[in-house]
């Protein structure tokens, strides 16, 4: 049970696909111009991650090494196509705003990466925990970036949905650049910079503590 929990939790923060592993940068940069788009993209990717992870983990013994990657890609593509059709049929508004980026989930390196490095080696139940963790990690990261960009670029959150909130007042002049491609780089770069700053500081505080307390550290 503890192993499963660890498999799940690592994707949320410690090995977050976006902020730590820097995987799946194309959708991260391309569709996070609004919170809704980020959330929808995250959920679509999570579904593919989970579905293809389960199948790839189940069939891993049947697939010869030579055709492992082509087989994985076909399975991933199948799940992506299911998402594509379902989105168009059941949530046309979201399918419309994500457009080309749904079929492009096939080439999201996060998905093949998890299939290769985790699902192809671990049993199904651990793969499910891993896929859920990575999926939630990817989704919150994309939504977070989407919220930052949308608030600064439009002054709203979840615009165009029933949850829409006007965050900024009338006085606010939206920074258009934040919802354009350049804004993606600015936001991601700044967020990564801030995160690394705090991470490094936390690490150096730990070192300081160890230095000042000397021997006592070893006994802890």
């Amino acid at each position, binding site marked *: 049970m503890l192993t499963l929990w660890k498999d799940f939790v690592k994707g949320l923060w410690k090995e977050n696909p976006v902020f730590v592993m820097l995987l799946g940068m194309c959708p991260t940069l391309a569709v996070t*111009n609004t919170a809704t788009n980020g959330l929808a993209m995250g959920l679509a990717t999570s579904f593919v991650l989970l579905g293809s992870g389960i199948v790839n983990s189940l*069939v891993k013994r*049947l*697939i*010869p090494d*030579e*055709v492992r990657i*082509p*087989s994985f890609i*076909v*399975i991933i*593509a*199948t799940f992506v*196509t*299911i998402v594509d*059709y*379902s989105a*168009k*049929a*059941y949530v*046309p508004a979201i399918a419309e705003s994500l457009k080309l980026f749904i079929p492009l989930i096939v080439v999201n390196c996060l998905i093949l990466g998890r299939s290769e490095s985790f699902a192809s080696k671990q049993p199904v139940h651990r793969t499910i925990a891993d896929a859920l963790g990575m999926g939630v990690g990817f989704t919150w990261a994309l939504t977070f970036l989407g919220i930052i960009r949308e608030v600064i*670029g439009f002054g709203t959150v979840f615009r165009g949905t029933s949850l829409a909130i006007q965050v900024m007042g009338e006085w606010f002049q*939206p920074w*258009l650049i934040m*919802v*354009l491609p350049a804004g993606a780089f600015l936001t991601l770069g700044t967020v990564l910079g801030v995160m690394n700053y705090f991470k490094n500081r936390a690490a150096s505080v730990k070192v300081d503590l160890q230095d000042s307390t000397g021997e006592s550290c070893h006994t802890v």
Partner: protein
Amino acid sequence: MGKEKIDIKLIVVLTSIMIISALVLSLVYQATTPLINEHAAQAKKEAILDVLPGAVKYEKLEKGGLELYQGLDEAGSPVGIAFQHEGNGFQGTIILMIGMDVENQKLLKVKILDQLDTPGLGARMAEEEFKGQFQGKSFSDNFVAKEDVDAIAGATISSQAVSNILKDAIATVEQAYSGGE
């Protein structure tokens, strides 16, 4: 011999995966296609009625190889035609639904169905402030941004693109009418 065996296994495995994928996808396709078509038809229907003020229904009309939609009001009398036309925008194709009054040689209403231009600049073509100005515009106007068309600030190219598509659409429809009669 041993090598051959592996080759056959590769083929069998990949082929089976493909077949299973194809089966699953054809099921999903069958389940979702009616809904997808319904959404597309619904969106088109709304767009056609939207650009023909006063119309409550419409009928398809073939003229000179063009697909036109004749809008009808409650009494069943024609209120104009709708025509879908597209052209290049600043960053991608712009698709317009255009309501026209061919008899009186003027535009009724324009609706932007799809565009990829810059959000906040060119994309503001979808706002009433810009597209509303084409209401009642005469076919014989020049359709030049910053002259007879008020351009969106900072998006002259997008504004001109919409004007060009309209101009082209008018020419296409007029040709169809003159050739068809």
